[in-house]
Each structure stands twice: as C-alpha cells, then as structure tokens.
C-alpha cells in the first residue's frame, strides 16, 4: 500500500494505492489521524487505485467517521465495484456522513457546497 497526500479545494486528500488489509491498516490510520488532529471538517480518500480492502481498512474508515461525524464528513473517491459492494455490506453506504464520489469533480463540488453552508 502506498499513500500520497494532496489537496482538493483546500481539503486534504489521501491517495491510496494497492491493498488495504489487517497488515497495513495502521499505516493508513496514522496518516488519517494526523489530518484529524488538525481539526479538518472533511477528509477525502481517493481509492481509485485500491484493488482490495477488508475489515482492516473498514475499521480505519469507521474510526475516522466517528471522529468526523460531528464536524463534517468522510469522502471517498472512485471505489471499484468490489470495494463499493463491501461498503454496502458493512452498512457504510447508508451512512450520510460517509460520501462516495465518482471522481474528483464530484467531490470538489460537494466540498464547495459544504463550504457555503
């Protein structure tokens, strides 16, 4: 798993590449915690290049979501069909603080709407 950080409309985006499992989830967790500690209202994960994720990764998303819920939301860009199905199975897909976007443009628009309110 490789991580790289950038920004979208002033919001931090972590691009993840590879497989997220119980062996490397803590690396992702640390990267997200660093951003959470800066009091960000929204964090975005670009998972375009994530081929695989299991409850190791889901647990990290759940922890992030728990901390973000009161102040904003967690955004996910471009999960593949299997990862999206996993989000449905674990019940994340119904969570209004967990927002999935097809691409950067859709995420950016949502960020601008959030900034306006």
């Amino acid at each position, binding site marked *: 798993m490789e991580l790289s950080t950038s920004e979208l409309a002033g919001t931090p985006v972590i691009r993840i590449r590879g497989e997220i*499992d*119980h*062996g490397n989830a803590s690396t992702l967790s640390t990267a997200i915690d660093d951003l959470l500690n800066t009091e960000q209202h929204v964090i975005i994960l670009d998972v375009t290049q994530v081929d*695989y994720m*299991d409850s190791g990764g889901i647990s990290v998303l759940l*922890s992030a979501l728990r901390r973000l819920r009161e102040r904003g939301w967690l955004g996910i860009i471009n999960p593949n069909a299997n990862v999206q*199905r*996993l989000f449905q*199975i674990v019940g994340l897909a119904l969570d209004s603080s967990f927002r999935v976007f097809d691409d950067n443009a859709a995420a950016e628009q949502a960020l601008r709407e959030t900034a306006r309110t």
Partner: protein
Amino acid sequence: MTHSHIAFSRSITVQPDTSQLYEVRRFVESVAADATLDSERTFDLMVAVSEACANAVEHSGSPGLPVKVKAACRGGRLVIQICDYGGFRLPSTANGFQRDHRGLGLPLMVALMDEVRIAKLSGGGTKVTLSVKLPAPALC
C-alpha cells in the same frame, strides 16, 4: 450432459504475521481462477480468507505457530480451510472500550460466503471452513 471435473486440493502454510495476508490472497486468487470463480466471488473469498487468517494471527494466541490454508474444489463448491493452533477466546473487556472496530470479521465472513463453519481442533486451535458454490455447470 456430463460436467468436466477439475477437483483439486492445494495448500499453503504461512507464518503467523499479518504481513503474510497479501501472500495468502495471491494463493486464493490462483485457486479461485482454477475453480473459474468470477472476479466478484474471488474478491469475496479473498476477504473472507483474509479475515479468518487475520483472526488466527491476532487472536489465537499461538505466537510462532504457522497458519495453514487448504483449498479444495469438490461437490460443486470451492472450500477453503484455515487452521491455527491456538485457542478460541473472546477479547477481555479490560481494554475493550478503546477498541475502534466492531468485531466485523466473523459477520463479514458469513455475509460473503455461502457457508462458514468454525470448529475446535482436538489439540487446541480453530478450524474455519469457508465455502462458495461454484457457478453451474459445476466444475468439480
């Protein structure tokens, strides 16, 4: 009409470390290809096997003892067994409330598989048997 039969049995043994999960998934991927599973069911099986192996590594309390993964294609199903040589135990509540995750592994295995079987091994240890039905016409 008779079906082609490609019954097989393959196994790997890995060290009890979560860094080995990547390797285990390559094994599952290869076995799933042999059994002609589609990419969706292959993903489901990779997740379920990873969860079972992660549990064996993280919870069985058998540091150093390897985890065995055995795959067999038979009776219209692809069946994968994961064995560890520790003991099945629940987490203590002493630090329990700091846990971020919610015990997703077992329910996720059940949600993804057609059948999950968990048995105690007589010498101590846990055997998890995961099975998925193969698409008709069954190949084994």
